[in-house]
């Protein structure tokens, strides 16, 4: 059975008895040359498990040859151990047990390569959505409106002046027209900037939401407990995942 064989001293320590001084293999207060039944019976467990030192094994063997009662008791325990250790199982699992069990594991978790592919797909979709959104909101037309408005003002300012104007200072009408054009231009720029600001905020929100969704997916992919197991989520009032130590007496009552 491959169990560790402790030394004699260790065995004595576990038995709670002291080793006799100057008598290797002897027990304090026990005359090993004439072992009594009670003393022999204390050593049965260690004897059966092969944990007894060679000298004590020899002493117990000697006692066993002389004592019919201990011989019978040891024989019963040895027969029991032999039957328990070597008997064939009279029942077997159904042949399709593994298939049925794995069928219960409904959603297999993705492998590494599948995870990479899924992430690449998600990343590509996200980038495409961002480009389409930006095009839709006119981000790529930046400056077009301001350019048109600027040209209008320029036209007004560079328009040939009236003869009166050419001679003297600009007339009040010309100035008013120029002022009006500038106001229009400023108003258009303001409107345009406001639209762009709102569009940018909407796009930012959309991107934030998408990123959060991707992060959720990433978290799910990295979470081993995401493997869905029917019954695994069931309330288990009797069995926590890490069960606490059982009260021995409680179990003995079963």
């Amino acid at each position, binding site marked *: 059975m491959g169990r560790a064989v402790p030394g004699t001293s260790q065995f004595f320590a576990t038995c709670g008895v002291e080793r006799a001084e100057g008598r290797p293999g002897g027990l304090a207060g026990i005359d090993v040359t004439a072992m009594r039944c009670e003393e022999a019976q204390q050593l049965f467990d260690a004897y059966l498990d092969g944990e007894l030192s060679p000298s004590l094994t020899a002493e117990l063997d000697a006692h066993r040859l002389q004592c019919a009662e201990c011989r019978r008791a040891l*024989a019963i325990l040895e027969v*029991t151990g032999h*039957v328990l250790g070597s008997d064939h199982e009279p029942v077997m699992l159904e042949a399709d047990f593994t298939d049925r069990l794995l069928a219960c594991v409904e959603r297999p978790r993705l492998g590494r390569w599948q995870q990479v592919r899924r992430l690449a797909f998600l990343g590509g979709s996200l980038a495409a959505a961002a480009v389409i959104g930006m095009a839709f909101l006119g981000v790529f037309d930046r400056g077009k409106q301001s350019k048109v408005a600027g040209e209008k003002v320029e036209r007004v300012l560079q328009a040939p002046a009236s003869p009166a104007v050419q001679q003297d200072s600009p007339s009040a009408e010309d100035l008013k027209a120029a002022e009006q054009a500038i106001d229009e231009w400023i108003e258009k720029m303001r409107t345009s900037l406001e639209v762009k600001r709102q569009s940018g905020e909407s796009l930012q929100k959309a991107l934030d939401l998408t990123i959060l969704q991707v992060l959720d997916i990433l978290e799910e992919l990295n979470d081993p407990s995401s493997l869905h197991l029917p019954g695994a989520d069931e309330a288990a009032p009797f*069995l926590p995942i890490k069960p606490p130590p059982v009260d021995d007496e409680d179990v003995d009552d*079963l």
Partner: protein
Amino acid sequence: MTDDASKLGRDQEKLLVQRAQAGDRPALRQLVDFHKDRLFAFIWRMVRDHHEAEDICQEAFLKAFGSLDTFSSEYRFSTWLFTIGYRVCLNRMRRKKIFAGEVDVSTAASPVTSGAAQTAESDEAGRVRDVVWSAVDRLSPPQRATILLFYRNDFGCHEIARVLQLPVATVKSHLHRARAKLKELLEGAWDGQSQELRNFSQRAG
């Protein structure tokens, strides 16, 4: 006992568990195939009901796979699996006790031994076997689990202590008391009826 599970080395088992943790289905299948027979045999010996044992076995695997990320590789997967299986067993036995009174597996019908096994052993050996297993069925659940894990699964006291979640000293005590009780029960059977048990033990002794 030489079966697939005993051939599975610790490193190999660790690798399989890592693959299973990464979602590798073939690794899950291998883990099931390596451990199912030993786990089922242990559970069946505890509950003595084929369908219930299969059900518990399945539940134990599903629970193990469901919390595979909590598995610590410092322990053997088999130890962890048996711990879960034993807990599920105890829970079922508690429920049975609640709903159907006392549970006495010693009254459970023994399965019919296969023809090959019947012809391979004499009537005498068969009776000895029956007497021994009947005595085992009359042990308390922790004692029975200790005896089964010790003799049939080659678990040491420390490993049994992990499975049963008890101190090692308590496991040793269970083992000692189980042996004493088995001896007492078998001596009763000896004195009461069976010359064959006497013959058998004389040969063994």
